[in-house]
């Protein structure tokens, strides 16, 4: 049996007297399509922040690609191959769309290789990624000129530019139309087929059910269910959490 790409052991996080995450255990195999759901305030984003190094977990351990990453900063984890998109798009507003992708190419891919990525390769890679997400014609524009769905595509493209092994998409489809959700799902599927492990944090159940091969449910900072999506949604505890007693 191969080691999981991501292993979380007894991870807890408290904010003062509030327990945001309570002894979370999770293993994610390489190539998986895992969806993470839960009501608002259940700790999904806190978990993502702890995994990516934005927040420090109080207890527990995070192993990524065989190495403990607890003491590492966010940029060090990105360089190891853990990329994320943010719940609300956070583009670099003073940089063009293409330059937004240049940052991980310069600071992650270049550092990982141990030498600067040649300029011609950077430009080619930017064009390739922008073509993949349908933003090639907007390369020289500023993020403020993009629509909501384009902004989310830019967010995903920037995460992909870091050439990750694991992509954590935090509500990448929030506020999008039916067709736009399908657009993002197709993109995520293509990435997964290219070998990138995906953790999808999402409220849109249609997207969750059509995309994921495994579903984890968080409620009040605790993991209450973990399994095949069709089994998990019929779990009485999950029904109670979402629909009430």
């Amino acid at each position, binding site marked *: 049996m191969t080691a999981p790409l991501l292993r979380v052991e007894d991870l807890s996080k408290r904010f003062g007297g509030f327990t945001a995450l309570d002894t979370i255990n999770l293993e994610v195999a390489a190539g998986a399509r895992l969806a993470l759901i839960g009501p608002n305030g259940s700790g999904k984003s806190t978990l993502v922040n702890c995994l990516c190094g934005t927040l420090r977990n109080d207890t527990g351990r995070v192993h990524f690609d065989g190495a403990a990453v607890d003491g590492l900063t966010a940029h060090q984890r990105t360089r190891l191959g853990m990329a994320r998109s943010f719940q609300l798009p956070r583009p*670099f507003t003073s940089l063009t769309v293409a330059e937004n992708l240049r*940052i991980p190419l*310069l600071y992650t891919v270049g550092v990982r290789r141990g030498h600067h990525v040649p300029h011609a390769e950077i430009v080619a890679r930017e064009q390739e990624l922008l073509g993949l997400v349908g933003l090639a014609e907007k390369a020289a524009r500023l993020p403020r000129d993009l629509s909501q769905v384009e902004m989310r595509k830019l967010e995903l493209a920037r995460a992909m530019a870091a050439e990750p092994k694991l992509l954590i998409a935090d509500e990448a489809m929030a506020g999008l139309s039916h067709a736009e959700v399908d657009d993002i799902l197709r993109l995520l599927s293509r990435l997964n087929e290219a070998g990138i492990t995906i953790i999808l944090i999402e409220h849109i159940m249609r997207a969750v059910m059509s995309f994921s091969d495994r579903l984890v449910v968080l409620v009040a900072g605790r993991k209450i269910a973990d399994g095949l999506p069709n089994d998990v949604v019929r779990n009485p505890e999950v029904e109670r959490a979402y629909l009430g007693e």
Partner: protein
Amino acid sequence: MRSRTFLFAALVVAGLLFEGLRSLESEYLFFAGYVVLQYVVLATAWNILGGYTGYVNFGTAAFFALGAYTSVALGKLAPLPIPVFMLAGGVISGVVGLGMGYLTLRLRGVYFSIATLALAVVVQTLITNWDFVGGSRGAYTLRPALVPLLGSYVQYLFLVMLGLAVIALAVAHVIEGSRLGYGFATIRDDEAAAEASGVPTLRLKLVATTLSGALMGMAGAPLPYYVTYLDPASGFNLAYAVNSIAMPLIGGMTSWIGPLIGALLLGSVQQVATVSNWFGGHPEINLLIVGLLLILFVIGAPNGIVGLLGVETRRGARR
């Protein structure tokens, strides 16, 4: 523009400026020009941290005065050339900048700015109580009336500051076109997103505070030989902090040319106001001019003159 071309062009312009002023045979122009160039360096140095990374430093006077008092201290020990004092002042202020970065860069926004203000107060208190450099009484500096080749010492000081201005602008230009410049821009735009893209934000901020502090210290080092008497009130003058912020804000903060424009404009207006006896020649008139212009630009042109003119910035997009 490539860095070497930029440096060559800057040196040519500097050479023409120096020879042009010499041909006018007015010592005052060198005297006033020194102050304007000093502000070109201070504004450019401030902009490396404040403009490129978005961390507003209110402590310019501390770094500037550290450079000036380094000259006073070293000058009492050995009569070294001004460029050596400038290097020493740059090292001292750079190290203080690095230390300040370590202590304060986990603070953001207004909290960081207040910490830099506190640094200025702490450094001023230490200098005021350090007798070796004159303490609160101040220190006199003797300067030679003439220097070889140039003749006038004021022209020599002007030339030294002109050289430093070229260096400061070249450093800013190199940063803008480099990987470091992209990293700085991401810190200004969104630090969390920068970290998520692999940018080592803390290390880059330390580079910015060190570079910025070092240039400010270098700008301060010749001051004792320019004024010949230095006390804490003049070394830590409010005008240094206010001007170094106002000049990039008025000129534009996203490009090396913004602080240059701001410093040339504001510095020149202040010098003209000083000698023209505007408003009865009150010494605070200079700060009034800065304040009024600052209000006008913040309301009417928040991206400064560079933004107002719609100048294309280095990355081809209009800000």
